[in-house]
């Protein structure tokens, strides 16, 4: 069994989760401070990828990132980088699809944060950076951690947008999910089942981790 798809899935999920972790937290933090109307609009836009079919996200991304499309052409000309049909294209697709999960859990965590703690910190002369990293983040730790793990789990299973943007090239862009589809399509049922079991095992482990985090949150 060639383990490349697992390695590829893991690195795509890890990198996209890392990107989305910071982007989701930053946007959740600033979105909470927007005026109500703008916040509503921003919220819709930032949550849309969660409810759109991944193929629609994939289509929209292709319209942007394809080698003859605005962003894709620019990247090719200026950076010499192809944004589609490479393993890192899958990172872009996955990050866009899973972003709302991180954004919404972080926002939920921030909304339940008692603002008087930040205000008390300010009156005591603590810097806003200190308050964010040493007070707000640790107090919201459980929610943000659970959101991160959930984001990672979803990233690991991303199929629709990934397959449209990165395609299926064995040894280059193949992920666990695209491999399962390819094996099933080519009647290689035995191998497909083995990949399915690998996937189920990993996802179950991740969800178990979420539950453990949630339980500790309840106990704290």
């Amino acid at each position, binding site marked *: 069994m060639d383990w490349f798809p697992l390695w590829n899935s893991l690195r795509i999920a890890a990198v996209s989760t890392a990107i989305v972790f910071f982007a989701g937290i930053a946007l959740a933090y600033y979105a909470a401070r927007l005026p109500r109307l703008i916040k509503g609009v921003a919220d819709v836009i930032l949550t849309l990828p969660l409810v759109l079919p991944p193929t629609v996200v994939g289509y929209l991304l292709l319209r942007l990132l394809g080698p003859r499309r605005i962003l894709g052409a620019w990247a090719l000309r200026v950076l010499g980088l192809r944004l589609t049909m490479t393993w890192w294209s899958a990172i872009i697709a996955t990050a866009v699809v899973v972003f709302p999960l991180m954004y919404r859990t972080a926002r939920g965590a921030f909304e339940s944060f*008692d603002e*008087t*703690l930040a*205000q*008390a*910190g*300010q*009156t*005591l*002369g*603590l*810097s806003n950076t200190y308050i964010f990293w040493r*007070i707000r983040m*640790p*107090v919201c*730790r459980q929610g943000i951690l659970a959101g991160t793990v959930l984001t990672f789990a979803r990233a690991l299973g991303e199929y629709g947008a990934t397959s449209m943007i990165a395609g299926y090239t064995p040894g280059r862009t193949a992920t666990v999910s695209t491999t399962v589809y390819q094996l099933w399509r080519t009647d290689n049922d035995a191998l497909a089942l083995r990949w399915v079991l690998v996937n189920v095992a990993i996802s179950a482990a991740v969800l178990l981790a979420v539950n453990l985090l949630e339980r500790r949150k309840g106990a704290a």
Partner: protein
Amino acid sequence: MSLVVDIEKTLPGFTLKMAFAAENETLALLGASGSGKSMTLKCIAGIVTPDRGHIEVDGRVLFDSDKHINLPPQQRRVGYLFQQYALFPHMTARQNLLCGVRGDKKGAGAKADGMLATLGLTAAADKLPAQLSGGEQQRIALGRILLNGPDILLLDEPFSALDSHLRFALEGELRRTIRDFGRTVVLVSHDRDEAYRLSDTMALVENGHVTARGTKEAIFAHPRTRAGAALTGCKNLSPITLLPDGRMLADDWGVTLAAGDVPKAARYVGIRMHAVQYGPGENEIHGAVTEVVENPFSCTVMVQPRGGKKPLGWEVDKSWWRDHRADSVTLHLPKDALLLLEE
């Protein structure tokens, strides 16, 4: 240390327009919840920005809309005790105190340990706030503020988070803390007894305005407005009609009262329940007892004056009432005890 506040801020529902000054005194802002007291403290601390105005502490301008000065809370040196104390829940008592030490962190540990000893909480150093009692939490929060070396102290309903039986003991402690601090303290409260015991001077706050300002004794003697009288605990209030002969008719009680010179702006009359006197005398009332409410150590006898619409409360000693119980009584309202109030 002197504090000067003159600010305006439009809020949903009402406009905050507060102007007052305080100098090395403990000023209590007494007002109903939602009257803008806490919002005023937040403006002083810099957590909320007023639309217009000026705030200064001992000549140091914290906020001035004309000069475009608006110091961040970090630079104001204003100590703020929050209603729920705002201790950082993931830090121990000692770590919370360490957050209060400004600047050089060298020697911070010794300062925190010294404060723990002063507070008598050395044994609680490594406990999280959730493991401390309400009183201990308040002491740590105050200690954290005092370590910070503030120029003034703002106390937002300091006892609202505590059970009533804890309040009295902690009140004594807070009174000592305030005395040792020795500078301007602004206390926000809706409890007139607590405000009276802790403060030197008072301001009554209604709908975002200061309606009366003075020593606490003067404020209780002359609350000026109907709402102010209610805030200071006067429960007998009636609208009045001024009569040509200089007397007035208390509309709710249906009695004519003489009170010397009645100011033209007066619209209400009030009298505290304990100031109502038994027997005949000036401003006599004859009425039927409609209800007797038993308090722990006194009785509130509700008396409906003949021809009146609403009863008057009269507070009497419990055992006295047991001996003098009656269905109808004669009372009088001494003219010096009458509060003449504006709207």
